[in-house]
């Protein structure tokens, strides 16, 4: 059953950036958008097994560091080849200075 997990502090992630977060044998990416919101997706690109944490956040997209595929990290939508399969996303809430993810 899904549960809320305290993942990181809000100031662990610069604005317009992301970090890797590993929990219970799974890897995730947590994003801090340019307007201060937080989002969470699976950590690995859906094209090949590459972690998105080395990628580039531009506005609401994450660009994969391997072949520059892009996703909208709010919805997980694959936006630019070579990615064709959407990323899974997870609900996020901020309480105080902590970011919680429902996994």
């Amino acid at each position: 059953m899904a549960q809320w997990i305290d993942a990181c502090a809000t100031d662990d992630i610069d604005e317009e950036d992301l970090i890797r977060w590993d929990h219970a044998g799974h890897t995730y990416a947590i994003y801090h958008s340019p307007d201060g919101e937080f989002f969470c997706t699976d950590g690995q690109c859906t094209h090949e097994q590459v972690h998105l944490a080395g990628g580039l956040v531009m506005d609401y997209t994450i660009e994969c560091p391997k072949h520059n595929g892009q996703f909208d990290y709010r919805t997980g939508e694959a936006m630019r080849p070579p990615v064709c399969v959407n990323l899974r996303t997870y609900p996020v809430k901020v309480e105080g200075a902590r970011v919680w993810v429902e996994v």
Partner: protein
Amino acid sequence: MTHRDYSLLGEDARRAVETGLTAAEWYHTDVPRKEMKALMQRTDMPAIRDTIILYGSMIVFAAIGVALWPSWWSAPFWLAYGVLYGSAMDSRWHECGHGTAFRTKWMNDVVYQIASFMIMRNPATWRWSHARHHSETYIVGRDPEIAVMRPPALLKLILNFFGIVDVLTAVPRMVYNAFVGVHPSEKTFVPESEWPKVVRAARLHLAIYAATLLAALWMRSILPFMIIGLPRLYGAWHHVMTGLLQHGGLADNVVDHRLNSRTVLMNPISRFIYWNMNYHVEHHMFPMVPYHALLRLHDAIKHDLPAPNTSIADGFREMWPALMRQLRYEDYFVKRELPATAKPYREEFHAAA
């Protein structure tokens, strides 16, 4: 001595998957996240400036070429036009394919489509082949973009300075894609959802060449082909010259771009035509960094890379004898010295190289 099977459906391809080479982690120089983020930043201005200069010069050179046609005085203008068409389009195809040249997506897409047509590459197929080239650079049987196979086919390489082999491969493939569909070897790296795009692009390209042919017949002149199509032959030499240097004579079946790619310092005109892809180790290690930031990336990581070749001639002086040796002994490759400040090559991965 091993004999290499470069077929994407062959024995080496199967072995690369079986031995885990295709899944191995590639070496990356450590760059602090803040610095890397700054290097990856996208902006439109440098590419807008370069694109205006590029297409503006092409229009001027072609217009003068047409005005002076059929006099020999037109030749230098065709040569200049040709190198921008038959060589600079290779780097524009490349950078815009990565989506890094411009910040704005549609600008990358427009230049990518135009450049793909001019360089005679199917924009859908080649996007995927290039992704594979980055995942599995110079892994035999897996990388569809190995320019210099072993033993090197020297006659082919030389003919390709005039685009001959490329065009003789590209035209039948375009016709095949337009009328039959995606080729079985392309199906190994192009996902099925993209196959209709391959066919559509091939048909569009074919239609443009058919229109050029009609114009040539109507005018009873090859002039239309001097503008569309032929420059892919008479202007190809520069991209072949720089392209051979990217990986020629270096290791294959390794997972460290310092061993299989070459950085070559070049004059500013070649760098404009090549859009800084002479910083090739840097580009392969960090494909997120746009062409205009590669000099800065080079400065940030050069302590961890072999010293670059100092000129195109210096690169050829290193590569050409290696290709000659590979004619007799195809396992030979140049292994460049790392500076004392670099992390060593991971020999455990590369024993077979």
